C-alpha cells in the first residue's frame, strides 16, 4: 500500500494520542484540520488525502459539507467517523454512510481499516472512470452515427453544365445538425435542380430526417418525368404568397412542385408527431437561359449577386417550412441570372454564426461581405469562409454551415 494521506477532522485540531501513534506506526501521513480550515481553503490548497477521519462530535451535516468541498477539489476520500468515549455519537454518522473506528486504536486494526478505505477509493475511482468513459463513448458514437448518415446523403460530385460553376462549402457542426445540399439533373438533363435545406434541431433525429427529406425531394423530382414537362396548373387556387404566383407553363416547375408539395404531404401525414421540418430553397435552373424557377420553403433568402453591380436581390419565402402545415400551398418564385451573376444559397449557420462574445454574424454583415467580395463562385465562398472564421474566432461552431455558389461564367472566361 502506498503511503496513505489521512485528514483528521476535529474542531480543536486534536488527535487522540493512541490514534496518532497507530497512524504513524502504519506509515500514514497525518494532516489535522478543523471543518472551517477545509471549507475556507482556497482551491488546490488542500492535502491530497484518501481517508478522512472525522471526529464523531461533529454533525454528519458538517462532515458531508467538508467531504463535498474535498470532492470539488478533485479528492474523494473515504470518510471514517471515530470516537473515543461517546460511542453513541457514531450512530448518526454510520446512518449517513460513514465507516467507523473505535478504541482501542491498535496499529493492526487501524491499518486494516485504512486498507479497506484505500481499496474502496480505488474501486470507486475506477467505476467513475468507466462510467464517464462509457457515457462519453456513447455520446461520441451517437455523433459519429449522425454524421455518417448526414454525409452519406450528400452528393459525391456536383454536375457542371457548360458555362456554369457550382461550388459548395459544407462545414458540419460537432453536434450533428441537419443541413444538406443537392444538385442534380432533371427533365432529361435539360434542367438543374439546386437544393439547400436545413432540418430543424440537432442530433441523430435531425440526421435521419435529413436523409428522408433529401431522398423524397430527389426521388420525386427525378421521377416527375417528361409526360408532365409543363406545369399547366399550380396546386391550389388560393395562394398566400401570391406575389410570385403566376399560372404560366414553365419547364421544370412540375418536378419542383411535385417534390416540395409531395414531401410536405408525406411528412405531415406520416411524421407530424415527431415535429421535424425543414426550411429549404429548391431552385430549377435552365442553364441555357439563366431562368430560375424556385420554391423557398421558409428558408433564409438566397442572394442573387449581380455582375452589373446592381443591388443584390433576395429570393424571399414563397411558402412555409416543409413538414409543418398539412396541404399548404407553395407558390413559385422566378428569377433571372445573367452571365457573370452568382446565386448565393446558404443556411442559418452563416447568419447565426457567433463570435466568442456571443454576437451573431447576421444578414446585414453577410450582405456587406457578399458585396465586398469578388463575385465569382469559388472565390466568393473563400471570401465568406474567411469572413466567418475571422468573426467566429476560437468559439465553437454550434451549427452546420452550408453555402452554395451558382455562378454563370461571363462569355470568354476560361473554365477552371
Amino acid at each position: 500500500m502506498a503511503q496513505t494521506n489521512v485528514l483528521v477532522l476535529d474542531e480543536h485540531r486534536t488527535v487522540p494520542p493512541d490514534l496518532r501513534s497507530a497512524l504513524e506506526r502504519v506509515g500514514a501521513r497525518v494532516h489535522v484540520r478543523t471543518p472551517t480550515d477545509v471549507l475556507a481553503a482556497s482551491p488546490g490548497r488542500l492535502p491530497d488525502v484518501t481517508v478522512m477521519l472525522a471526529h464523531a462530535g461533529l454533525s454528519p451535516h458538517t462532515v458531508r459539507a467538508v467531504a463535498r468541498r474535498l470532492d470539488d477539489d478533485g479528492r474523494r476520500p473515504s470518510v471514517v467517523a471515530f470516537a473515543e468515549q461517546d460511542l453513541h455519537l457514531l450512530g448518526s454518522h454510520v446512518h449517513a454512510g460513514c465507516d467507523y473506528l473505535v478504541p482501542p486504536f491498535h496499529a493492526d486494526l487501524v491499518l486494516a481499516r485504512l486498507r479497506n478505505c484505500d481499496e474502496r477509493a480505488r474501486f470507486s475511482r475506477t467505476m467513475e472512470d468507466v462510467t464517464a468513459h462509457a457515457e462519453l463513448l456513447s455520446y461520441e458514437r451517437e455523433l459519429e452515427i449522425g454524421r455518417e448518415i448526414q454525409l452519406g446523403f450528400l452528393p459525391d460530385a456536383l454536375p457542371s453544365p457548360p458555362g456554369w460553376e457550382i461550388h459548395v462549402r459544407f462545414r458540419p457542426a460537432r453536434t450533428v445538425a441537419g443541413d444538406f445540399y443537392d444538385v442534380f439533373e432533371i427533365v432529361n438533363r435539360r434542367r438543374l435542380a439546386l437544393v439547400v435545406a436545413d432540418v430543424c434541431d440537432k442530433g441523430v433525429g435531425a440526421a435521419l430526417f435529413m436523409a428522408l427529406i433529401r431522398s423524397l425531394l430527389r426521388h420525386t423530382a427525378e421521377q416527375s418525368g417528361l409526360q408532365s414537362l409543363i406545369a399547366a396548373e399550380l396546386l391550389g387556387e388560393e395562394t398566400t404568397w401570391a406575389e410570385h404566383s403566376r399560372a404560366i407553363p414553365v419547364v421544370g416547375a412540375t418536378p419542383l412542385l411535385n417534390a416540395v408539395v409531395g414531401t410536405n404531404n408525406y411528412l405531415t401525414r406520416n411524421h407530424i408527431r415527431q415535429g421535424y421540418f425543414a426550411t429549404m430553397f429548391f431552385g430549377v435552373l435552365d442553364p441555357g437561359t439563366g431562368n430560375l424557377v424556385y420554391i423557398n420553403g421558409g428558408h433564409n433568402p438566397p442572394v442573387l449577386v449581380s455582375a452589373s453591380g446592381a443591388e443584390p436581390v433576395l429570393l424571399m419565402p414563397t411558402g412555409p417550412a416543409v413538414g409543418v402545415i398539412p396541404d399548404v400551398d407553395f407558390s413559385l418564385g422566378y428569377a433571372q441570372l445573367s452571365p457573370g451573376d452568382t446565386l448565393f444559397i446558404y443556411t442559418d449557420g452563416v447568419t447565426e454564426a457567433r463570435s466568442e462574445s456571443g454576437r451573431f454574424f447576421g444578414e446585414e454583415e453577410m450582405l456587406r461581405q457578399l458585396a465586398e467580395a469578388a463575385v465569382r463562385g469559388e472565390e466568393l465562398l473563400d471570401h465568406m469562409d474567411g469572413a466567418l472564421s475571422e468573426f467566429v474566432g476560437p468559439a465553437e461552431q454550434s451549427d452546420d454551415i452550408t453555402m452554395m455558389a451558382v455562378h454563370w461564367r461571363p462569355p470568354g472566361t476560361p473554365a477552371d
Partner: protein
Amino acid sequence: MSFDVRLRVDERVATIELRGELDAATAGRFHDTIDQAAAAGAIELVIRAEQLAYLSSAGLRSLVFARQKMGDDVRIAVVGAPETVARTIRLAGFDHSIDLIDV
C-alpha cells in the same frame, strides 16, 4: 447562455414567459412547461417573448410541439417578440398557425 421559463395559469389562460435563448440545449425545459400548460387545460397559450434574445431552429421546433400539444382549438400567441425572433418565426411561415403580437 442563460434561459428561464415561467408558467402562470389564470382563468384557463396559460402564460409562459421566456427569457434568454431558446435553442437545442434549452428547448427541453420549454417542452416540459408546455406539457404543464396543456395538463392545466389551458384554452389559450400566451408566450411572452419580450426577453427572448434568440430562437434557433430547435426553438422553432418547440413551437410546432406547442401547437400539437395544445391542439388546434387553442389559440397560441407570441407576444412582444424582438424583431430578430419575430423574423425567424415569419420566415418559416409559422405566423400562419401562431399569432405574432406586438406590444
